[in-house]
């Protein structure tokens, strides 16, 4: 469903050109669980942003669900992001003045869904994320793990095909990190395509397929036998 062909992403820094992505060729099928590892600055986030259409390739072709993303206009891109892609960030990025439920609701609000319909979906998501009691709390009243679960609920509320997580456990302690990983994996088992950028080798091993990046290139692409059944 995701196909990257000869993708380059260059940044101009002063009079130097940084090749953040350097000839990336990658195909990801629906329902995969993919981890992306590699040293800092190797282009992992850039790759994720590009797949999530927050960023654009300098050259190359990106096809999502058979559609050539490179040719979409800004409005179509926004709509595709809204419907088909969910983001989870290391820094959570919850809006502080909104409650947990309101944060989760946001993509549906942007999509123009009616309040009644939204309410049902948000209730379900809160239940699934075990956040019912926290529904009306502001982010600063939540623990790190709870915040990230709110962010995951928000990323998946539109039932996207792809969930992109950039170091989702980077700001969390061991236990809540594990919680978050469990949550993500559960979602993957239900069919979502999960792409996780991580420094955690343990997590890398748990995924079905792991990429290793160095200097904007994919240096290894391994598929494992299912780590668990």
């Amino acid at each position, binding site marked *: 469903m995701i196909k990257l062909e000869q993708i380059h992403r260059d940044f101009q820094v002063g009079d130097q050109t940084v090749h953040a992505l350097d000839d990336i060729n990658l195909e990801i099928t629906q329902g995969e669980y993919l981890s992306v590892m590699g040293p800092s600055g190797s282009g992992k986030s850039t790759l994720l*942003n590009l797949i*999530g259409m*927050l*960023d654009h390739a300098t050259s190359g072709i990106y096809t999502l669900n058979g559609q050539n993303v490179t040719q979409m206009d*800004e*409005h179509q*891109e*926004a*709509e*595709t*992001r*809204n*419907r088909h892609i969910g*983001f989870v*960030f290391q820094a959570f*990025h919850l*809006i*502080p*003045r*909104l409650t947990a439920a309101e944060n989760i609701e*946001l*993509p549906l*609000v*942007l*999509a*123009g869904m*009616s*309040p009644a319909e939204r309410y049902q979906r948000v209730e379900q998501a809160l239940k699934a994320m075990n956040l019912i009691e926290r529904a009306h709390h502001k982010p600063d009243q939540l623990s790190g793990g709870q915040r990230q679960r709110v962010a995951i609920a*928000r990323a998946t509320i*539109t039932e996207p095909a792809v969930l992109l997580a950039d170091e989702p456990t980077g700001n969390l302690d061991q236990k809540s990190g594990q919680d978050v990983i469990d949550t993500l994996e559960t979602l993957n088992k239900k069919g979502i395509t999960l792409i996780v950028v991580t420094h955690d080798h343990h997590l890398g091993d748990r995924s079905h397929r792991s990429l290793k990046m160095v200097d904007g290139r994919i240096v290894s692409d391994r598929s494992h036998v299912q780590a668990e059944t």
Partner: protein
Amino acid sequence: MIPADVFSYSWQSLKGYRARTLLMLLAMCISVASVLLLTALGEGARRYVNNEFASLGTNLVIVIPGRSETAGVGLNTMMGVTPRDLTLDDARALRRHHAVTRIAPLNIGAVEASWQNRKREVTVMGSTHELLDLRHWKLAAGQFLPQADWDRSSPVCVIGKKIRDELFGAQAALGQWLRLGENRYRVIGIMASEGRSIGVDVQEIVIIPVSSAQSLLNTPSLFRILIETKSRESMQKVIDFALDTIKQRHYGEEDVTVITQDAVLQTFDNILAALTYGVGGIAAISLAVAGILIMNVMLVAVSQRTTEIGLLKALGASRRKILLLILSEALLLSLLGAMLGFILGLAGSWGIRLALPELEAYPPLWAMLASLLVAIMTGLLFSLMPAARAAKLDAVSALQGGH
């Protein structure tokens, strides 16, 4: 996004940044309020002058001795500089026009009045029976000058309220003999009216028959001839007639000025209307200043919320949606500010009316509409730039804290 959501999102973010919201509300509110207040004052002054003139009488044509140099109301005419006497016979000649319903020759002078041992300087006005209705005056007691031949003097007088109070005190004034200069006049009436008329306070005048005044003041010449015409339309005919007649009688010299109260009123009206527009315009400048403040604060708001805007983009907000959100926030702010300004402005003009009841200080409708419109326009206009900047933000760097 559905409108209700746009509204609640804007509302939430206004609530989220209380200090800047209050600051901008204050700026908007003060400028809208000052537009309303200043125009209310101007409009009140205009109405006040209008009412004052209306109380002079209706369809009034005034003949003044002396030719005015300019077409309008010159200083000379206002001061009544006299090159040739205007006489009772002139007034009599003017009465012949069919459109003249009432006519009152007027004489004026200052003399000393006394009763028993009380004295004071008073303004003596010599006139005729018709003056009362012509000026829409009212009597408090007794009667006005008798309907008689203008040439017949008779020793009677009608006095203003203040004269009554000061010379007669608690005693009954009606029927008493008031001494004016060397002569004595029996008080036959007391004026009820207040206010000023051709520069004299009605409460402080003594009115006597015109021929009595001529001998008392020792002058045959009149100060004014007041003419009431049948209708507004006939005023011009009467003016032409008056000019012609007097010219004939004065051996071909047009040495009088004929004005209508409308002409004077129009002049004042124009001046005060211009003043109202002027102060309204000045106050509107403060709205523009508020607009610049809005722009600044919205720019800060956008940079404060860079990550939020990045997030919205990641969640699927297009540029247009971001633009819409920021603009509606500014619009909401302007509307709220304008509303508070309306409340403050209306309360303020109410306060003015309490303090100065004679001034009907209501803000005019055009000022209310214009200030609302200008508030909304400046709010939108000045937030276009910050909104466009927000919409253009690069999502990835915005999410990283924006650079």
